[in-house]
């Protein structure tokens, strides 16, 4: 079966340095890919290119067969994207914000209402539906961003640090949510919390200094060293020493 996400030789150069260097991988339906790496390794840049926000210097990325540069609107229709920091419009209410993204995605009338209600139920936002987003705590804001990405039930989910700023209970909820959705979707999550990879991911990719250093299931990674922590340190620090 064809992969829902295809990334081929993706490269991004900024003035003076290469943020993402010749990365290739694909993600099929049913896979949850954990995207690991130290801060500044190029995780967010890769995700931004995959989401069609940043044009790649070289290489291609496609979502459900649509190239993100050549057919951006088609690619984005099949994508739920949580950008880094979960940005939202602060003056809007939770329900208003979700309705806005839903309308852009072409929903209207009772379907729009059903979709926003469902997205709020999935992320436990019903209690704050009419509050302006700026009055919410960090964990709620993150869940508003998540709700926006899930609203249209997309086949591809790209989530940049989905559990950052959540308390342990909320982290657990989000991981449960990801696990429940996993069979029908291709999911990429970036994180620097290693136990999260073991908990939800079927596959892990480690990048350091823009290069892909490991692509393997978490269980295989753990066999190589004593723990994921050690593997991560060895691979990413080793790269820097070289």
């Amino acid at each position, binding site marked *: 079966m064809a992969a829902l996400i295809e990334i081929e030789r993706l490269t991004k150069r900024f003035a003076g340095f290469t943020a993402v260097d010749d990365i290739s991988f694909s993600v099929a339906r049913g896979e949850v890919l954990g995207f690991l790496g130290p801060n500044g390794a190029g995780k967010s840049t890769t995700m931004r290119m995959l989401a069609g926000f940043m044009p790649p210097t070289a290489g291609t990325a496609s979502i459900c067969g649509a190239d993100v540069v050549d057919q951006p609107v088609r690619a984005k229709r099949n*994508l739920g994207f949580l*950008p*880094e920091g979960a*940005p939202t*419009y602060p003056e809007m209410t939770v329900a208003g914000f979700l309705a806005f993204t839903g309308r*852009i995605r072409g929903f209207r009338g009772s379907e729009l209402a059903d979709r926003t209600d469902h997205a709020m139920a999935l992320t436990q936002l019903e209690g704050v539906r009419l509050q302006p987003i700026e009055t919410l705590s960090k964990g709620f804001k993150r869940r508003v961003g998540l709700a926006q990405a899930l609203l249209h039930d997309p086949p591809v989910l790209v989530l940049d640090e989905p559990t950052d700023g959540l308390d342990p209970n909320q982290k657990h909820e989000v991981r449960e949510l990801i696990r429940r959705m996993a069979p029908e979707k291709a999911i990429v999550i970036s994180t620097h919390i290693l136990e999260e990879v073991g908990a939800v991911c079927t596959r892990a990719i480690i990048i350091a200094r823009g290069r892909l250093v490991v692509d393997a299931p978490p269980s295989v990674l753990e066999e190589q060293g004593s723990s994921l922590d050690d593997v991560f340190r060895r691979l990413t620090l080793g790269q820097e020493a070289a």
Partner: protein
Amino acid sequence: MRAALIVARRELSGYFATPVATVFIVIFLVLAGALTFTLGNFFDRGQADLIPFFSFVPWLFLFLVPALTMRLWAEERRLGTIELLLTLPLPQWAAVLGKFLAAWAFCGIALALTFPLVITVNILGSPDNGVILSGYVGCLLVAGAYLALGAAVSALTRNQVIAFVLAVALCFLFAAAGSPVVTEFLNTRLPVLAEIARGLSVADRFGGFTRGVIAARDIIYFASFIGFFLFVNAVVLDHRKAD
């Protein structure tokens, strides 16, 4: 187009959810009213028209419109929502057009709220309301031109102060291009440029509207001015959105 209108609707309600709308409209109305009645000699002229009002509006817009546009893209960058907006399934031009339409509609609302002046002049005398209407159309087109220019500048930089100063300077360039000072200076030295300057001047085009003349070539001028800068905005955005 649907996507552009959805963006415009969100933007416009954003203006009214923050103090931006109140501050802008109150300052605009106070200044427009005060200038019309003091410097404009509204009563002493003894004529039932809104010429004093229309002569000040473009100059007010020169400062107020860039204040509106300076945050258009800079704010999206600061909040990071630009990443959200541009990864939603909408063509990029729809985001540009939506933002412009919202700001334009907002200026339209501010202009519409000067209606007491129209009532006043109708009570005091019998003005040609057709001329007044065409004056308002002219004001709206000037606002649109400045908005398009300011929005393009705002896409260029993430610093709001730079966006404001640059937009005021560029708007002033187009406002002053047809003024006697500039054209006489150019006439004595480079007569060709004087013609071009007059042709590009926003103020010259606006003058026709205040006299009640809605000429096709003036409409075409404003339409192409707005279209050109919206295009520039889209191109600049495409190159610098992630900076």
